[in-house]
């Protein structure tokens, strides 16, 4: 299957803002870029408050607990989700040899998704939250997210149904899986029917809330909380990586069999693992055992995927110096490797005992969501936007600076948080109280805030660079390099 050759045709489509070919994809990506700068900035304020708690104190909507929710929801559901959906809207037409079923529907989805983000920020800032981690958005917004997910899924499945290329490339399996799993997961994990039941008399958000009564709520919460990573971000990122890397290096994927094993094993194992977040709660033991087994089982999809990608790169490793998006994608796979070594080990009781409740986990979350998925999303943005606009990147040098800022910033953040987390965990096991542990963390929290500032700067550079690419950069000429190399 020749996945690379249609980019030229694709790029010559009309350039209507809400109906032109590729507009839904681009608009999703533009929104994602904007949300990244906002959500990162919010995170930086929160990180600063952790070292200087009276910074911007006494302002309700700038309280740490509210900022944290705005940061996590912003990066997860606005930046990453929108970047991934935008990539889907580009990749699916490429791989099916047809146009997106409806650009207008895609753009309606984009507008709806942005409305969720704006309303989400306003509600969270005003203390309207379900207080279930990663499921904080209040129920009316949950409904909007569901509608947007179903619209996006409909668009994608219709496109796939109308495909000209009969064979489904591995990216399409992942995209199809993702668009089936995420709405199911979101519906179940948020207990979205709960507010409709007569028993839903109390609620915690001032709005109907999807919380269950009793300890069972936490098992549902973490089924959702972890699987939103597994069945949304991981599978989306995998789909994008499986598409973009072979296209850029113009080389076929190493193994169909490995893709096959990876796909079905992630589908099976990931769903089991949510309970490893709550190994020490009084919840059923068999559920925890399943979670540990599932976590270890995740080695299978991870290593099949990484083996497949890295063996695909054989003979082409030098191209990471030529292609900026490839550099982002490949560095993302390295961080993915680290993520997936850490993850299953964290689920083992002995290690979990040390690092549970500590900043190690926060470091791990940034490793997965910033180091891995954000790198892949940035790579996708730097690939897709120039290609579909037929314009060169405004400043490759600036993009290079962005790459090193976010790489260095992320590494500093992960190391400071995880070293701090080990200190925290060791001090607790040693019998020290939180109040004694806090001052020990301070240097690490300072480094984290500095690294956060670097990441914010990289986000701003990206936004500026893409803005100038869209408005002021040189169009690619007919003599321009082939699309695969175009972004750099």
């Amino acid at each position, binding site marked *: *299957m020749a996945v690379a050759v249609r980019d030229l045709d694709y790029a010559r489509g009309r350039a209507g803002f809400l109906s032109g070919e590729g507009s839904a994809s681009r608009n999703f990506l533009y929104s994602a870029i904007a949300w990244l700068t906002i959500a990162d900035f919010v995170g930086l304020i929160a990180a600063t*408050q952790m070292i200087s*708690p*009276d910074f911007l104190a006494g*302002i*309700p909507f700038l*309280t*740490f*607990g*509210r900022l*944290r*929710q705005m940061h996590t929801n912003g990066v997860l559901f606005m930046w990453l989700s929108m970047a991934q959906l935008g990539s889907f809207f580009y990749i699916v037409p490429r791989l099916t040899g047809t146009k997106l079923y409806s650009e207008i529907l895609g753009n309606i989805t984009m507008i709806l998704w942005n409305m969720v983000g704006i309303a989400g920020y306003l509600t969270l800032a005003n*203390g*309207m*939250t379900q207080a*279930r*981690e990663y499921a904080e958005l209040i129920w009316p917004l949950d409904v909007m997210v569901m509608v947007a997910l179903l619209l996006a899924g409909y668009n994608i499945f219709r496109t796939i149904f109308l495909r000209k290329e009969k*064979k*489904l490339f591995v990216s399409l*399996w992942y995209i*199809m899986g993702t668009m*089936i799993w995420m709405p199911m997961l979101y519906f179940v994990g948020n207990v979205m029917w709960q507010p409709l039941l007569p028993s839903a008399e*109390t*609620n*915690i*958000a001032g709005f109907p*809330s*999807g919380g*269950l*009564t*009793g*300890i069972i*709520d936490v*098992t549902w919460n973490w*089924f959702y909380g972890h699987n939103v990573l597994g069945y949304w971000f991981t599978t989306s990122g995998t789909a994008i990586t499986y598409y973009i890397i072979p296209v850029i290096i113009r080389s*076929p*994927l190493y193994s*169909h*069999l490995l893709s*096959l094993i990876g796909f*079905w094993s992630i*589908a099976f194992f990931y*769903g*089991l693992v949510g309970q490893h977040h*709550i190994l*020490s709660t*009084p*919840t*059923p033991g068999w*559920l925890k055992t*399943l979670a540990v087994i599932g976590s270890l089982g995740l080695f299978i999809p991870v290593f099949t995927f990484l083996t497949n990608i890295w063996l695909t790169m054989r003979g082409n490793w030098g191209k990471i110096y030529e292609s900026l998006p490839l550099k982002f994608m490949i560095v993302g796979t390295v961080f993915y490797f680290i993520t997936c070594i850490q993850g299953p080990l964290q689920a083992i009781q002995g290690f979990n005992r040390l690092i*549970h*409740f*500590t900043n190690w986990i926060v470091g791990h979350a940034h490793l997965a969501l910033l180091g891995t998925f954000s790198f892949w999303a940035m790579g996708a943005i730097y690939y897709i936007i120039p290609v579909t606009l037929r314009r060169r990147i405004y400043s490759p040098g600036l993009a290079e600076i962005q790459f090193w800022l976010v790489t260095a910033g992320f590494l500093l953040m992960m190391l400071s948080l995880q070293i701090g987390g080990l200190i925290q965990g060791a001090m*607790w096991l040693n019998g020290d*109280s*939180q*109040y004694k542990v*806090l*001052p020990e963390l301070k240097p690490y929290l300072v480094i984290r805030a500095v690294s956060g500032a670097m990441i914010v700067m990289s986000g701003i550079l990206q936004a500026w660079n893409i803005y100038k690419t869209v408005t002021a950069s040189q169009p690619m000429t007919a003599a321009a390099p082939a699309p695969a190399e175009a972004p750099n």
Partner: protein
Amino acid sequence: MDHNGGAVFRMDGRTVFFGAFIVFASIIFIVVALPYLTFQPPRSADARPLSPEEEAGRRLYAANGCVYCHSQYLRPQDWTGVQSFRTVGRVAQAGDYYYQQTLLLGTERTGPDLSQEGGAHDDEWHLAHFYNPRYTSPKSIMPQFSFYYDGYRPTDDVKNLIAYVQSLGGQAGVERAERQRALKIKLQTERARGNEAIIHEWFPSTWRNVRNPMEPTTRSLVHGKQVFTTNCIGCHGLNGDGKGPANTFIANPAPRNFTDASQQLYFSDGELYDAILFGVDGTAMPAWGDVLTVNDIWDVTNFIRTIPNGGLQVDQLDASMMVSPADVVPIRSTPLPIEPRPGYVPVVTPEGGLGETGGATGANASPQPSEDEAPGANSTVGPQPQRTAAPGGGSNATVGPSGTAQP
């Protein structure tokens, strides 16, 4: 595109679509539906539904994202998860959450675990702490909740929040908090009657005659000063006069004024040690046992004795600055009979009241004296210096400055 195995398993649209759906639906059945159907733990002994005020406080707790720093369950390894000697390190049980809709268990512990917070601190301590956590806990990085105050006056919001926090720990937490409130009323009532000495009943009699085992060397005093200035000034003030910023909220009983030598010597070294280690029940003085070492506490006990002579103002500290009997102006209150006697052990009745609180009720309306301002009625009682100067004077092991003379 195929490198190998293209024929192993045909991934057409139908296989992917229905396969993905069926696998995930099975997973949902196993890890979501099955536990829901089979795991219904009965309520535990401590489980308790919240009152409307506590429920309102719980919503504020959720709204402000308190759950992102405070967990609400103790793990088996968490004996240090409890931040106060007044509370019990009890590993969470499934039935504890019987009445809760939407759990606030938390996944990170930047602040202390709160699952047994009820009664760990005094209501007034919470008032100061919510306004600015640094007032009571200088090393805390918790955000201010000063927006729940009208000026310095607490609104219903913060009162509900405190009601919720005092309910954590379920039935046991509420009983602890009620016991604290009852002891506070008893303390206030007795003081209003002029019985300042009631406070001695707060400390086990075994501590009464204990001398500070740490010699008041310069090293001890300087270390004690460091402990004092990094932990105590939020309430006891930069001058040690009990007028730190938290004083605005902690009025009754107010933080102890250490600049008054007579108040100092009113307490033996052992009593001060006990007060710091375990806190003082019924007052905002929290337990510091999880934070300070034995060494820290004895050194700060030595240092406190220099405050009337300017220990907080000068850089060079030595034992000559320790308050001595010559500095002592007898406090204007009924002195305590010095005879050793059993310590006061409050008995909590099932209703949460005190079994031993004679006349505790009905005393709220009377004007409450603060620590450094004895009620006028007391002056008529007449000072009895030979008794107040040395609380442990009944025995040979005299407590106080004469007992801490330098070698």
